[in-house]
């Protein structure tokens, strides 16, 4: 999967490395801004109050 992605990248080696890193940074950005906050609404570890709730 990542091998195919690597072969798809154009250009000489140094350009491929830069594009690869750029690709992951963008994916990380999408994750942090959209995916993780959405996932966070499902994971409720914390109940911090005392009471019968």
């Amino acid at each position: 999967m990542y091998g195919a992605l690597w072969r798809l990248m154009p250009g000489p080696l140094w350009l491929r490395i830069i594009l690869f890193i750029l690709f992951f940074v963008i994916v990380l950005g999408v994750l942090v801004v959209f995916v993780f906050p959405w996932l966070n609404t499902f994971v409720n570890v914390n109940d911090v109050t005392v009471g019968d709730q």
Partner: protein
Amino acid sequence: MLGIIGELLITAGVLVFLFLGWQLWLNDLIVGSDQNKAGVALAQGWGSPKPAPDAGAGDKDYGDPVVGTAPANATQFAVMYIPRFGADYSRSVSEGVGTKDVLDKNGIGHYPGTQMPGQVGNFAVAAHRTTHGAPFHQLATLQVGDRIYVQTQDGYYTYVFRGLEYVRPTGVGVLDPVPQSPGVAPTDRLMTMTSCNPMYSASERIIAYASLESWQPISAGAPEEILATVTAKG
């Protein structure tokens, strides 16, 4: 084929770690910083932290603290400063302790039905220990004598930390006017802070107790220890 499945599984594993790192560290940094700024903005809307010219210098006894009335649910009515948690710590306190509408959004919540800051009895609050800005992340680092300042539109209430207690989630006795003493009439002005325990679990609660040491009106200016925090630019 197997190579792709392997890579997908590894990717899924890495994603889980990334999510945990985000949820338990990065997001708390970001949201915590936002909450600090919101707290300072709220506080500065109540009046200048600098003392009024006719306030007089030095320690002054301002008499019994002014006690406010509890506002509607999810309304931010106070700002809490805890120097032990950092010089920029300034989180707002909202009425109510609903998870979705108060604790996840605003920060610290005030148990409805418990007393207000400065009131004889128990001013009880709750906040997340991890996630959603984690206002009470460092609750266990408090040491006897640490000051906790609560500012409302009426003034600054200085509480002093006394001790910690660990209870079960059903331990509602800590919310009594005299904590853990049902039916006893209160004579002291106390504050109770609750959060979950151990750090990444909700199987118990950690309780921090503090008692009121002094109070001063807004016109007297912010207490010296938090003056820099309250005057900070957003």
